């Protein structure tokens, strides 16, 4: 397949990268305006239930909330330029530190959910494509759509009920068992860290705690992945080179795996990239249900307390992650489909 020339792709990547700072600026402004539009006073919540007006005023002053909005935004940007995301009003610590604490948990959960998506979604899609129109197609379609139609908040509770209360196979919530100390901090991903430390017990604990939330989170991403696999497979299976393969009398399994899946894989990767957004959205609900101490839980609490810096910091981080993934998807896309011009 003749792709675009290397320099063109490189130029495209550079151009997109150059757009990242203005994008983050846009996001920060958008968020700043959005959060400050809320007619609420976080200082009251921070100061405590029975706090007097002077206490509230003191908190407001300490966090610079008494200054005009434009000035607050300017101060925020100034700090941001130095890599300072401000101080969380709720936890009273640097937002950057908070993100460092909670992001790995979210990363681990999302990554595991992504694995589950691939492991279940791709085979479902293949079954559908191969048996198109038949019973297996219908069943695969039902299974993936069923997963997609299930409210994640009901599914999570159901999973806890079945696997914890009835079957007693899996733990209920959290990242590790009580009394388990987490592995030495290297990446913050317990699975990876305990592997690196060679700590089998912690690894096992981390893995079984990860299973239910990851599967619950993956549920909504299964259908798009299965659907994409299915349609790409169908696409490829009707291409000339596959017809040739059939004509040559190759065994079906070889046709599907060698020609079908291999060629279908890259578009599937692109949709997986896009599923990151869906997964990061679902993380908010899954972390709540499974008491998973990640960014979702952190920012839901932040949103409820109107912890401006925490909300903005989380959103900026997620934006950066998302944009980079998006860029990777677009690059794959550019390499794949030379008809698109940039």
């Amino acid at each position, binding site marked *: 397949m003749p792709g675009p020339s290397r320099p063109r792709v490189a130029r495209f990547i550079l151009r997109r990268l150059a*757009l990242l700072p*203005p*994008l983050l600026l*846009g*996001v920060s402004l*958008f*968020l700043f305006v*959005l*959060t400050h*539009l*809320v007619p609420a006073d976080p200082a009251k919540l921070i100061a405590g239930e029975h706090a007097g007006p002077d206490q509230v005023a003191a908190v407001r002053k300490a966090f610079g909330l008494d200054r005009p909005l434009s000035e607050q935004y300017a101060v925020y940007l100034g700090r941001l330029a130095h890599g300072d995301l401000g101080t969380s009003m709720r936890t009273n610590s640097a937002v950057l530190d908070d993100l460092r604490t909670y992001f790995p948990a979210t990363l681990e959960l999302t990554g595991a959910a992504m694995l589950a998506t691939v492991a279940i979604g791709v085979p479902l899609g293949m079954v559908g494509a191969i048996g198109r129109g038949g019973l297996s197609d*219908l069943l695969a*379609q039902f299974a993936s*759509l*069923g997963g*997609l*139609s*299930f*409210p*994640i*908040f*009901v599914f999570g*509770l*159901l999973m806890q*009920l079945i696997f914890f209360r009835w079957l007693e196979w899996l733990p209920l919530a959290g990242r590790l068992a009580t009394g388990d100390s987490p592995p030495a901090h290297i990446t913050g991903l317990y699975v990876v860290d305990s592997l690196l430390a060679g700590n089998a017990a912690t690894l096992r604990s981390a893995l079984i705690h990860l299973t239910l939330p990851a599967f619950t989170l993956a549920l*909504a*991403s299964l*259908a*798009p992945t299965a*659907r*994409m696999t299915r*349609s790409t497979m*169908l*696409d490829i*299976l*009707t291409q000339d080179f596959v017809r040739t393969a059939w004509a040559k009398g190759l065994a079906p399994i070889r046709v599907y795996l060698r020609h079908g899946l291999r060629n279908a894989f890259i*578009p599937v990767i692109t*949709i997986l990239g*896009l*599923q990151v*957004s*869906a*997964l*990061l*959205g*679902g*993380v*908010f*609900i899954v972390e709540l249900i499974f008491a998973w101490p990640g960014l979702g839980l952190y*920012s*839901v609490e932040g*949103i409820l307390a109107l912890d401006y810096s925490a909300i903005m910091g989380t*959103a900026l981080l*997620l*934006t950066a992650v*998302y*944009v980079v993934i998006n860029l990777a998807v677009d690059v794959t896309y550019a390499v794949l*489909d030379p*008809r*698109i011009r940039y």
Partner: protein
Amino acid sequence: MLSWTRASDTSTGAGVAGASFLDLSLRRLGHMPAAWIGGVIVLVLLAVALAGKAVAPFDPLRIVPADKLLSASPAHLFGTDDLGRDLLSRVIAGARISLLVGALVLAIAMSVGVGLGLVAGYWGGWMDEAIMRTTDVFLAFPRLVLAIAIAATLGPGLYNAMVAVALSWWPWYTRLVRGRLLSLREEEFVLAVVSLGAGRPRILLRHLLPNVATTVVIQASIDFGYAILATASLSFIGLGAQPPTPEWGSMIAQARSYMIDAWWYPTFPGLAIFVTVLGFNLLGDAVRDAFDPRLRSSR
């Protein structure tokens, strides 16, 4: 989840918007079991929503403290909730709300998204750049997160939640429409009309819009269920429907601590969402398959 369509997915020819295509597609739709199942679900839902109170055994707001958390019985087929209200009546009342939610969310998202997508994809240039960078800002958030943020700003309420979901949704239509236009511009038939000297508005109206409309309608039929689901999710977090509105998501939010002791309370609203979204998904998927011309060529 808005399924993502590659720009080159539907490389249809010029005349596809004609009656024969529609005819063919509908006929194909009639042969799909998924379409039938989805269609029946949606029809039943519509009937229930329209009949509303006429088929509900009780007033969905009638509180009877003494009848608190009764399990399913002939008197209360779905049991009662924690204030002794009849769950079946509440689930039935919720059907109308959900259909309204799906329709309104899509109407808002589409009217904003499609318009901007047409502008960006057709005129291109700085307008394209400006619109797409704006969508980048919106798309930079996980969608539910953005909806949560907007809903928190607007204040809790069902209508605010719908607006929030719609506002987090429009950029997907913009992208879809723009992508479709971009690939259409490269199609031979468009190149041909251009070379024949057709004017811009004419190309847009006569040749591009019908193609785009098909794509958008297919997408909307797939999205209907998710619009309901997303709004229910906001209600679940407490940013959507307010008490005593029998919206399914908020019913589940109130019921979630009863999963073990009164399984019927979260289960029936949960099933209602599930069946509804599944119905729209099946139908939407079938519509998409039926109208996807590549399948036609391979059949």
